[in-house]
């Protein structure tokens, strides 16, 4: 029996399905559409068990028609419902992006706020398990670059539940991007740091507040999603080398908590960005801009260092994939370099 204070250790997948379920209990207007979210429970278990609780009217399997059903989610929101639509892999955004970025993300602005669109898009991101170029991308920067949709990228179960409930209650479009390699699925190896204690009852985490995962004095590591778990391990290894790294989990890209990043760099004077999206024209550049725009008050002891997928598609072969997706060792090496470079 769950009480207000009960704590359970949950995988991120369970935290997500719990958040959706509790919001569906709380608000009849909330429903879910997507491919294989019903009897299958979602390919990544984000809707596990919900069909039995809520039935086919509110847990709706769809045809393979993303532009159709995501546009329909927007239309249903216009009519007063609060849809959650799952895009199975973010890699598929290209078949439905017009509905997302030209309509869902713009209609509120184009209507001067007269149209509210409480739609949550849930989608799976990330690689590292050999799923190759069309099923392993992160792409959060692609969404963050286009105005009108909030971008949430949790790194662990506790945050996932609180951020998702916040997203479902938000009157704006939100894309909630969960990394497959931290969901704690029984069929995919994962970083166990993402499986955390999660309160049984509801709570929300406000958007735009980065979390300092580990305090440190020598180096700021700005990261998000699965890479937070890699960075935590890397920070411990750096500590053994006498390097005290501060690890910042951005948690949301839109809104972006620039202040926490700036304050940390003001303290450490050194910045490493660990990102699983493509390197150029993305997240790592935006973090650099945040620093460059404050260069008068943020003197750097060493050049900023960026780790990300080096502008190549994700290759299938394991050693190749391992080479392009930043690993714990890469973070350790880069961190040591940055501090070393600082003398």
């Amino acid at each position, binding site marked *: 029996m769950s009480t207000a204070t009960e704590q359970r250790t949950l995988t991120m997948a369970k935290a997500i399905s719990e958040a959706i379920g509790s919001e569906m209990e709380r608000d009849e207007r909330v*429903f879910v559409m997507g491919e294989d979210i019903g009897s299958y429970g979602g390919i990544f278990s984000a809707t596990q068990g919900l069909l039995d609780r809520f039935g086919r*009217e509110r847990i709706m399997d*769809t*045809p393979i*028609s993303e*532009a*159709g*059903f*995501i*546009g*329909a*989610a*927007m*239309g*249903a*929101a*216009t*009519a*007063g*419902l609060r*849809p959650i639509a799952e895009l199975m892999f973010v890699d598929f955004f290209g078949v439905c992006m*017009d*509905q997302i970025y*030209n*309509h869902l993300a713009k*209609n*509120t*602005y*184009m*209507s*001067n*706020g*007269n*149209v*509210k*669109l409480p739609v949550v898009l849930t989608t799976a991101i990330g690689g590292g398990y050999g799923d190759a170029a069309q099923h392993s991308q992160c792409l959060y920067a692609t969404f963050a670059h286009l*105005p*009108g949709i*909030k971008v949430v990228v949790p790194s662990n179960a506790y945050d996932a539940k609180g951020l998702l409930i916040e997203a479902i209650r938000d*009157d*704006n479009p939100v894309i909630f991007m969960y990394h497959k390699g931290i969901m704690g699925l029984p069929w995919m190896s994962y970083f166990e740091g993402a499986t955390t204690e999660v309160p049984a009852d509801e709570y929300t985490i406000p958007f735009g507040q980065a979390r300092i995962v580990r305090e440190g004095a020598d180096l700021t590591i700005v990261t998000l999603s699965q890479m937070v778990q890699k960075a935590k391990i890397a920070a411990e290894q750096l500590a053994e080398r006498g390097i005290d790294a501060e690890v910042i989990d951005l948690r949301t890209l839109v809104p972006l908590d620039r202040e926490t990043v700036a304050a940390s760099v003001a303290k450490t004077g050194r910045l490493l960005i660990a990102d699983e999206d493509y390197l150029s024209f993305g997240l790592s550049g935006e973090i650099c801009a945040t620093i460059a725009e404050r260069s008068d008050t943020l003197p750097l002891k060493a050049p900023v260092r960026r780790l990300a997928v080096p502008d190549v598609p994700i290759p299938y072969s394991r050693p190749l994939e391992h080479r392009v997706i930043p690993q714990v060792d890469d973070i350790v090496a880069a961190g040591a370099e940055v501090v070393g470079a600082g003398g």
Partner: protein
Amino acid sequence: MDPSSDQLLSMYETMMVIRNFEESMVAIYLEEKLPPDVQAGLAFDIAAGPVPGEMHLAAGQEAVAVGVCAHLGDDDTLVGTHRPHHFAIAKGVPLDRMAAEIFGRADGLSRGKGGHMHLFDPAHKFSCSGIEGASMPPAVGAALAAKKLGKDWVAVAFLGEGAANQGTFHESMNLAGLWQLPVVFICEDNHWAISVPKERSTAVSSNASRASAYGMPGVDVGHNDPVEVFEAAGEAIGRARSGGGPTLIEVKTDRYLGHFQGDAEVYRPKGEADALREHDPIPHLAGQLRERGVLDEELQKELEERARARVEEAYEFARNSPYPDADEALTHVFA
């Protein structure tokens, strides 16, 4: 289901309002856009004048809008296209605030943020967009919401015959047919998609014939007749309202003007538009009304005058409305 005389009269009046709104815009749009006001060397400046940007007018297509909207109430959703004025007027969107929006003014529906292709009026469940084929998925969603909420609301998506070759057509029709939703798709076949005629864009002659691929009825409505549109739409909307599922209707209609204002129409056979105007449904409907004995010279003058006056007032309202403060551009990205 035959239209009553009152319904015919109001359709007639609305068609005149639409025609007047569109044809008045032809001149307004050109204000300050021609030499010598503009950059030397230009024949025309789309960026100048009270109404910048593209301007897609629906003169000739009034019959489709009024024949359909005669069956719609404020609770019914209408999603229009890049050529949206006739739909908006027929759906009851306030003419003055719509004109002000098109002028980019503070009294506009969205204080000028949306513009001609992006008119939003939630009170009348009206919206539209500049993306071809994008009207259908949201209409499907509105219909899904009606069904979930147990309301008898209907959603109507308009599209052009050119947009019927966009993938969203297929996905939306399939969802509507699969879930048996209260949505009606109305394809305006004005023969042209900018410069591309239907026979060079579409593998079949009738989009209505495509309805069978989605298990829904498909209806062809012949040449631009508001009464035929009224009847076909009435049946489809009635069926949708009573749980009978979706319908696809294609209406043959006419584009009297260029695709957008400023279009030299080099691609269009000389005199085509003039020939089409000989079948103008407005005088034709007036004739029918006279036959029915519900319209005489005097009433016709009165209705024409009233339409003219409404449009003139709306444009006056727009002209007199101030521009919004520039910093409003930074607001309402999020609700």
